[in-house]
């Protein structure tokens, strides 16, 4: 009995001593020192900062391989999220088109897509504009500051830093998010053809000019479903050369569930896009003066655009473009 107890005690004492020594070693004598880490191990906010810095560095030096090497090993969602946010932030802030073009180039190379970048691919090329653009704060968008800095693009530098060399080449996707959905083949006779998603079937059903004295020119959008009910919670993008703005339908319920609006200014050609990918539905939309009547003062009109889905069996070529012809209403 006493021998058994001695064995137990001996074992327990040894265990305790060993545990103490083990913890002493791992926590005190040789604690792990965090050195030589890499960006993927950074805290989330620092990691996002790293991506942002890499993107801005690309704007400065234009060195795509260097940017790729710096972003190598980071999660694609981190990279995509930060670059998307940066492009949208810069677009909303009216940053110079060259800067946004650089960011867009980087985004494309990294297989990152955001509607805000599409303005540089699809927006109408208008006459040269001042790089400093006054933003259009709408009630549903973030107020944006006026740009004062002018970045200087410089030749790509070569800094002798042993950046990671195993550069992974993201597969570049040529298909643009703005690509309109291909129409269903019409020659297949016995078809229960799948109905395209509602947003893909939206088309301009009505465009009317609103002339209300004292109102800032704006672009109102009204999205409806097949039954004529408003579509809430849909992203609506307004793109123009050098910028973009986004609104979500339904945030002004007094105007209807499918309603969203943007402030706009004359002399700018806008593209209206719908959905997360910003499918362009209306192009070359411009604020125009209202027709004058008698002694009225000149007035810039707003636009109200009603978008409705075409019926599923309505062929692509059968879009009723005449439905979108502008009408004029005086308030």
């Amino acid at each position: 009995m006493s021998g058994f107890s001695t064995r137990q005690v001996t074992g327990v004492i040894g265990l305790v001593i060993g545990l103490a020594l083990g913890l002493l070693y791992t926590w005190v004598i040789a604690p792990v020192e965090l050195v030589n880490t890499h960006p993927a191990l950074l805290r989330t906010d620092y990691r996002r900062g790293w991506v942002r810095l890499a993107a801005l560095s690309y704007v400065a030096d234009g060195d795509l391989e260097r940017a790729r090497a710096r972003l190598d090993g980071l999660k694609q969602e981190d990279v995509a999220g930060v670059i998307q946010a940066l492009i949208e932030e810069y677009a909303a802030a009216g940053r110079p088109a060259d800067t946004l073009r650089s960011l867009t180039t980087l985004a494309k190379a990294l297989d990152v897509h955001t509607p805000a970048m599409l303005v540089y691919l699809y927006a109408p090329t208008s006459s040269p504009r001042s790089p400093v653009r006054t933003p259009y704060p709408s009630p549903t968008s973030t107020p944006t500051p006026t740009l004062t800095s002018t970045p200087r693009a410089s030749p790509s530098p070569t800094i002798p830093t042993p950046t990671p060399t195993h550069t992974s080449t993201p597969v570049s996707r040529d298909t643009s998010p703005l690509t309109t959905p291909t129409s269903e083949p019409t020659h297949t006779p016995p078809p229960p053809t799948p109905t395209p998603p509602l947003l893909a079937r939206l088309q301009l059903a009505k465009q009317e000019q609103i002339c209300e004295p004292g109102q800032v020119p704006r672009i109102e959008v009204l999205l409806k479903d097949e039954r004529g009910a408003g579509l809430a919670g849909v992203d609506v993008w307004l793109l123009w050369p050098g910028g973009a703005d986004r609104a979500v339908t339904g945030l002004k319920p007094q105007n209807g569930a499918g309603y969203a609006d943007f402030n706009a200014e004359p002399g700018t050609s806008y593209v209206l896009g719908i959905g997360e990918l910003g499918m362009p539905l209306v192009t070359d939309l411009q604020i125009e003066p209202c027709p004058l009547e008698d002694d009225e003062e000149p007035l810039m009109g707003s636009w109200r655009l009603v978008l409705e889905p075409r019926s599923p069996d309505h062929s692509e070529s059968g879009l009723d473009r005449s439905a979108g012809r502008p009408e004029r209403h005086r308030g």
Partner: protein
Amino acid sequence: MSKRARLLPKWVTRAAAGIAAGLTLGFAVGWWFWPVQYTNTAPDVLRQDYHDDYVAMVAAAYEVEQDLEQAREWLKLLDPEEPSTPVIELAERLVEAGGSAEDVTRLVRLAQALGANSPTLIPYVEDRP
């Protein structure tokens, strides 16, 4: 005597086994159950090449955004006391190693904006456009 001689090795053996088990448990606790978290690190523990890249990127971002306070905040993550020190150090090393003049120039501009300078870097300051 012979009994004692047999008992002692057993005692030692058991103690050694206990210690070994305890050590194993200790290592398991220190390195397995509560392992050191390698995530959530800060830029100041980045490997030297990443560290240098970070500084170079801050200088490039400053060139684009002209936001000195933001650049200072980024650099404080490397050196909270003297944010300009990593900038000067990297610029000097680049000059010594024959690095890109563009990078050096950016770093010097940022260092200057932060109120720091170095004799080695004066030519780059003077050559500034």
